[in-house]
């Protein structure tokens, strides 16, 4: 039996979420292989520290942008070739589309949004939140099928193991006709990590009073290396892009630190962020529901507090 980890990288560097998966895989004692699709110049030297014996690399211009048909074809062919029975990935915009597609092609069990992997009886079971984090459950899989699991980023530790020799194997794309065509990529303005993968998020709501004041939040975010989020009220008002919305009809996030500034904490917002490890709430209204979910709270005007907070963080991080 072997385990295959789907790796993702930014600018050639492995994402820490991929290292979390590798760490979990080393605990199974199974033979570990990894695969990357389309990531050019991926630095794989680090894989030796996570027990990876084989790394499969598909390099093809067709893989430069995500196309479900082409990516699925490549991943399915590899899984079938190496007979991988456990395939792990980290939730991202690519994998949330790719994994269920491949699961259908190879008739695998699939679950997404895992927060904990439990190794029992030569299989992973998964803990995951349900109903927007209002409860949790354990998911167990049939033994007769391969299992494909997507984990939320920032949930598991990263620990190196005894170095091994990693063999790099180049694969070429299976020949096929594809019906889906990617015409164009429109780059977003942000170079930051996606909200769903960010380890620190600073989020703003109506308490910022106007769109221009998001600058204060961006300043704080750049000090902390954080990604900026927003409440539905302000994305609906057009202050910032919908892609920044955290909550029920936006992104579900679970960073280590979530700083909610001028966000009252409607149920729909809480549904998207209440699994965050540490929540800081800054709000004028001491009765705001956000304080019920928060770890630390400060009552006050967001516009006064933000510059002071930014200065204080700078002092700490530069010392």
């Amino acid at each position, binding site marked *: 039996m072997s385990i295959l980890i789907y790796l993702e990288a930014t600018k050639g560097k492995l994402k820490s979420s991929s290292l979390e998966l590798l760490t979990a895989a080393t605990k199974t004692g199974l033979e570990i292989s990894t695969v990357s699709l389309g990531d050019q110049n991926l630095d794989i030297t680090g894989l030796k520290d996570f027990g990876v014996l084989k790394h499969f690399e598909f390099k093809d211009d067709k893989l430069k*942008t995500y*196309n*479900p*048909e082409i990516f699925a074809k490549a991943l399915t062919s590899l899984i079938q070739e190496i007979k991988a029975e456990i395939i792990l990935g980290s939730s*991202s915009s*690519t994998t*949330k589309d790719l994994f*269920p*597609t491949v*699961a*259908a*092609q190879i*008739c695998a*069990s*699939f*679950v*997404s*949004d895992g927060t904990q992997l439990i190794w029992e009886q030569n299989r992973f079971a998964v803990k995951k*939140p*349900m*109903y927007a*984090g209002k*409860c*949790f*459950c354990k*998911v*167990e*899989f*049939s033994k007769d099928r391969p299992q494909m699991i997507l984990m939320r980023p920032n949930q598991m530790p990263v620990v190196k193991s005894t170095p091994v020799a990693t063999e790099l194997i180049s694969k070429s794309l299976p020949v096929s006709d594809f*019906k*889906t065509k*990617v015409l*164009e*990529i*429109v780059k*977003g*303005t*942000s*170079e930051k990590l*996606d*909200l769903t993968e960010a380890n*620190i998020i600073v989020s703003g709501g109506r308490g910022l009073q106007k769109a221009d004041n998001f600058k204060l939040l961006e300043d704080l975010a750049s000090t*902390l290396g954080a*990604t900026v989020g927003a409440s539905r009220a302000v994305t609906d008002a057009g202050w910032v892009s919908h*892609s920044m*919305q955290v909550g029920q*009809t936006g992104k*579900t996030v679970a960073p280590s*630190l979530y700083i909610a500034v001028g966000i009252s904490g409607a*149920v729909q917002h809480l549904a998207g962020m209440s699994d965050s490890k*540490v929540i800081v709430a800054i709000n004028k209204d001491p009765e705001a529901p956000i*304080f*019920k979910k928060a*770890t*630390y*709270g*400060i*009552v006050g005007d967001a516009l006064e507090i933000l510059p*002071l907070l930014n200065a*204080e963080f700078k002092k700490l991080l530069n010392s």
Partner: protein
Amino acid sequence: MSIFVCVKQVPDTETKIKINADQTGIDSSSVKWILNPYDEFAVEEALLKKQALGAEKVFALTVGPARCIEALRTALAMGADEAIHVQTELEFDSLYTASILASAIKKFGPATTVFAGKLSIDGNNSSVGPQLAEALSIPHTSVVSKLEVRDNKIVVEREIEAGSKEIVELPMLSVITANKGLNTPRFVSLPGIMKAKKKPIHTLNISDLGLAASSNETLYKEFALPPEKPLVKMLLNDSAIQELVKLLREEAKVI
């Protein structure tokens, strides 16, 4: 030719969730159920693009217990023409749900296009849409926030990472999963609700589709409420900001 919109009934976000006695799921007796919010975008888009996609009818379809008829009624009240309810008390994994939906679409087809929400807010798996496309052997694209019909093709905008967007062209016969921003779903009007009462709802069993009520291959168990959060630490004095930064480093250890 018809458009098919797959919908799901889910607990309202505002509903308080209680766990059932044997921890195999939630206590559904006190739950307020709604049409999954992302499915509203899917229904709306089907209605808006009915003509452009060359469809005569819009079907809403779902798999689930008797109560799910309400979700179908909402879709009918929005303007869908007919509904299909594959009624079952059993729970299935996404793969089997997708194959049931595919069989129903084949039975009531041919389809011009298939829509679904990008995910359902109960399990958050976002798996049925792509898996339905596989079951129908047609392409798909997910998380779509803009859709145009051009020269018998569908051109969509879909959100990828960090605010970037991908423009994708697909054949008309594809599965499209809807994201927020695709449109503004219409409010259900009283005349809409009255009209919906007269619209056909086709109720069938899984065996009517020539499928077996297969046992569930993926088991969801040991449901539990999250551990109680400790009470919030309110920082009230003049040095609250300094104190916060100190606590984040020394107590919470997150920076």
